[in-house]
């Protein structure tokens, strides 16, 4: 039994524990232990820097072998999965869960759903043939659906919508599998890899469309992104955090395996679209850029913190795809690194928002404000998170985005570059609105006695904040993982050092940048606190504007239509365009159903049977 067997066993055992003991008091410690044990087993596999490791067991079903194997890519994704599982469980284990149960929900179900998600992801990222990939994929889809739906109500409807998308995606993948099987005679990766060069461009385009949409739906790539934000936002706290960290990235994982690992970017570039200047890679890259822009600006419109963050989660996925598609060492490193950096960022952000929800009972951005003095540590987490999310130094998100920008720049892709930047600017705008509307501005009277988030929630939040900062300060370790993944995928490998990267176009060193920035803050503090006299602290509720006292009972927080001017301008550009598409599809299904149902409403449809007979007669004649 090797380490990978152990990992799978432990993952299954954790799921079983959740199923059996999820309701009991020791559920949380037990599960935390389970995730930690999986983590240790994952480290033991040494799949990142060592040789890929195969599962000792394999299945043969209907003559189709099913293997599992962990390589650097699997390891990287499994690491994020297990980390997210561990932290979310930790976050939701203490008082949060007590509250959740008091509201009439079942802790056992939540634990089970979470463990099932982790288990299916551990299974998925080890897939070594399409059958095991699809098995993991579907398990994940249903585990996700389960976790989304378990709160009922709006969440269930969002989950159903998710299911509509995800299952359609699954079917697209299944169709692609059938085509691949017909071509390669097998579903294992190796024969498929060998048969892919023989395929015509037409066949590859079909595969690209099917697999691209199948995997893209999970990722929330345009135009399949509509399901994601409501579904993730309405999931209970730990689940939401877990999802946003890693769930959608499984689509990216599968895309990496197929499009980068098997088809290869070079082949994608060769696939010209007739009558345009575009090729396969450009097409995907543009989809990625629009995935950055549209969801980001949709996020800007949101009035609910959870929705806002969930929309950003979709948008950030675009950077990952974009970076990988650029294909240079820096670009793919940036894309891959952003998976990790975004995961920690998003988890921290959502945890902070759910902490606010836990304390105040709402995440409505128009019903909060001024909480900074009440929940300073949560504020700190959110601050670190938004700086990272917006891609500003000195946090982790900056490093990965910088790599992507540089790659785009040196590859000469100005429009994609500008698209990415526009997305970043939109992110800055929207995260400022987030932090402003929750923590700054007017404190509402009913929140005057709000306490800091409980310790069980603070610990994961603060440790993640630290991680965000450290991953920005010293990106070397994470870059070393990414480099191993690049080598695994056959991409050019990035030259990294502890502080950043260097290459023919220069490089950057985060240690210097961050150090200088910190020193700058020091100087700033020195100037500010040293030069002037002491300042007088005004009470939070003691405010005036334009010479008039503002009464605490009156709501004077500027939160509604925060960017009214901008929205006035760009609102009509994209408002509801995809909603329209979705509704149109729904209406088509509706119409078809209506049409087919009509047949069953005919009083005397023997004429149809006669027509069938006639048709057959014509056919055979």
């Amino acid at each position, binding site marked *: 039994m090797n380490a990978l067997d152990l990992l799978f066993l432990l993952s299954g055992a954790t799921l079983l524990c959740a199923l059996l003991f999820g309701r009991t008091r020791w559920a949380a410690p037990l599960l935390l232990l389970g995730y930690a044990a999986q983590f240790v087993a994952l480290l033991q596999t040494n799949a990142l820097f060592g040789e890929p490791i195969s599962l000792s067991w394999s299945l043969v079903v209907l003559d189709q072998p099913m293997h599992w194997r962990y390589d650097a890519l699997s390891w990287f994704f499994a690491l994020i999965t297990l980390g997210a599982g561990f932290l979310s469980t930790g976050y939701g284990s203490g008082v949060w869960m007590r509250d959740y149960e008091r509201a009439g929900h079942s802790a056992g179900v939540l634990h089970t759903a979470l463990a099932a998600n982790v288990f299916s992801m551990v299974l998925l990222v080890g897939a070594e043939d399409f059958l095991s990939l699809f098995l993991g994929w579907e398990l994940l889809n249903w585990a996700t659906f389960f976790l989304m739906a378990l709160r*009922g109500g709006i969440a269930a409807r969002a989950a159903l919508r998710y299911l509509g998308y995800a*299952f359609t995606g699954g079917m697209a993948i299944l169709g692609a599998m059938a*085509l691949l099987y*017909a071509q390669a005679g097998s579903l294992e990766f190796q024969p498929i890899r060998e048969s892919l060069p023989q395929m015509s461009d037409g066949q590859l385009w079909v595969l690209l469309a099917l697999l691209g949409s199948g995997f893209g739906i999970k990722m929330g790539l345009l135009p399949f992104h509509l399901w994601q934000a409501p579904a993730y936002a309405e999931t209970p706290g730990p689940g939401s955090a877990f999802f946003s960290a890693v769930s959608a990235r499984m689509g990216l994982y599968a895309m990496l395996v197929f499009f980068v690992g098997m088809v290869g970017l070079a082949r994608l570039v060769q696939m010209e679209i007739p009558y345009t200047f575009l090729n396969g890679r450009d097409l995907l890259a543009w989809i990625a850029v629009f995935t950055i822009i549209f969801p980001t600006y949709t996020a800007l419109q949101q009035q609910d913190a959870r929705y806002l963050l969930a929309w950003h989660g979709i948008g950030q996925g675009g950077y990952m795809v974009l970076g990988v598609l650029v294909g240079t060492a820096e670009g793919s490193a940036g894309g891959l690194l952003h998976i990790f950096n975004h995961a920690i960022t998003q988890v921290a952000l959502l945890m902070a928002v759910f902490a606010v929800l836990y304390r105040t009972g709402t995440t409505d951005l128009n019903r909060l404000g001024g909480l900074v003095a009440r929940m300073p540590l949560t504020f700190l987490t959110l601050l670190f998170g938004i700086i990272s999310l917006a891609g500003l130094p000195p946090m982790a998100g900056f490093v990965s985005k910088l790599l992507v920008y540089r790659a785009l720049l040196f590859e000469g892709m100005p429009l994609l570059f500008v698209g990415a930047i526009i997305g970043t600017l939109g992110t800055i705008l929207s995260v400022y609105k987030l932090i402003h509307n929750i923590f700054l501005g007017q404190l509402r009277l009913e929140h005057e006695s709000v306490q800091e988030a409980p310790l069980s929630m603070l610990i994961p939040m603060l440790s993640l904040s630290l991680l965000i900062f450290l991953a920005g300060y010293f990106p070397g370790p994470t870059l070393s993982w990414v480099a191993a993944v690049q080598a695994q995928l056959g991409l050019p490998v990035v030259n990294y050092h502890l502080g950043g990267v260097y290459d023919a176009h220069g490089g950057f060193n985060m240690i210097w940048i961050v150090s200088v920035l910190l020193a700058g803050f020091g100087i700033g503090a020195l100037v500010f606190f040293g030069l002037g006299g002491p300042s007088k602290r005004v009470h939070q509720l003691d405010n005036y504007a334009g010479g008039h006292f503002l009464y605490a009972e009156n709501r004077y927080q500027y939160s509604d239509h925060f960017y009214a001017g901008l929205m006035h301008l760009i609102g009509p550009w994209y408002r509801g365009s995809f909603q329209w598409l979705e509704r149109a599809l729904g209406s088509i299904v509706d119409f078809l159903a209506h049409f087919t149902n009509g*047949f069953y409403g005919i009083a005397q*449809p023997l004429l149809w*049977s006669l027509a069938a007979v006639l048709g057959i007669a014509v056919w*055979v004649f």
Partner: protein
Amino acid sequence: MLPLILPVVLPLLAAFLVMPLARMSALIARALGPIVLTTSLVLLLPCCLDPPAQPLVLAIGNFAPPLGIVFYGDRLALLFANAVALFFLLFWDWRGGNPQQARQDALMLLLAASATGLALSGDLFNLYVFYELAAVASFGLVSLSGTGPALVATVRYLLVSAFGSVLALAGIALLYLQTGTLNLAQLGIDPEPLQGPAGLLAFGLMVIGFGVKAELFPLNYWVPEVYASAPARISALLAGLISKLAVLILLRLLVLVYGDTAAPQILLFLGILTIFFGEFSAWRAQDFPRMIAFSSIGQLGLVFIAFSLSGSWGVLAGIAVALHHLLVKSALFGLAHRWSGSLQALTGSAQRTPLAAALFVLFALSLIGVPPLPGFWTKILVLAGLAQEGSALAFTGLGAILLVTAVEAHYLFRFALQLYEKVENAPAGFRSFWEFLPSLLLGAALLAVTLRINPVADRLRAITQQAADRSFYITQVFPQAAAHRKDQP
């Protein structure tokens, strides 16, 4: 030889006797059916679990084929015969209490006998007779409740069924006109003349004729209303079992005579239309029986598509899909016994009967093909086969299956979520779990198959090997013909 003939004859005998007996002792009359079916099961089960190497071939009355009628029991036929006994026992009206109980039992026994006959008979006209017997018995059974809707539905069903019979009979006449024989094996010895337009037309007529029971579009308009108004047990048997047996006739014809012609294309085309109409209609269904009735139509479309694939792949895929649907759809109709009302009214049912709701979810998952449940393997067989086929129609079929499966998943889980919704005054549904015991058993069977997928697949392959081999069938029925043919080349 007893396993071939007694499962057909004994239920008939019992059916004839049950009404006179009921006048003497209700108890004996009630016990007769289960006893007979159990006997059949006992006779058949050894053949199915440990099948003989050679198929059982029985010339009725010792009249050598093609003079007399032949019963041909290969692994496939025996499996289905076994399934008949098993499913009739499962969905037997154990409760009783109907004033017309004896008649109902008699009809059930007739249906069982005809179903077994459909599985075993190797003579085309004999198959037609059993098919008609199944039809007439089912007319009686679906109108059991005697309500207005049931009667109207029955009459509509009867009309299309009779129309189909007329066409099927015309097809049989056309065949006989060309070959002078009705024995399937003999038809297969020299299929050449039948592969012309006239032979194909005969096949087409039979497709339409037997397609009525097999819920083939456009002959399936009776399905939703009949299943909505008939007792759920009967629906389970009709949708699960009888439809598959009707397909079985077409399978035999395809394998023996029409394998290399345009016939599979016809099936593929109609199958695509069937799956499309079924699943899309189900999407709008507002009550549970009709939802699964439409879903059943869709699944049978899948069966047709599967059987249209060439070679033994198609047979394997078809048998797998058919057996899977047999299991799942019967079980779903088993749930419809209490969940007979609108979907809306079932909101929150999981609160009172969590087991039934869980079963529904399990069956729904398997139905839409979620790995590792058996439904997935059957579906991937069909899809891979279609992709290998490579024709435009096959790709259309591929796309259609994928599309409608997505639709199917949506409506099934729309309902599943409804079941799990939290409401005040959750509907009671089942009074005890005995009421959905058949579904429970079938669910357990489904899980067992999931775990033992490879042995089951091996078994299916062995079945396919026999069923898909044209010359094997012919040799078994006409040893001399094979010898004769061997000399020829």
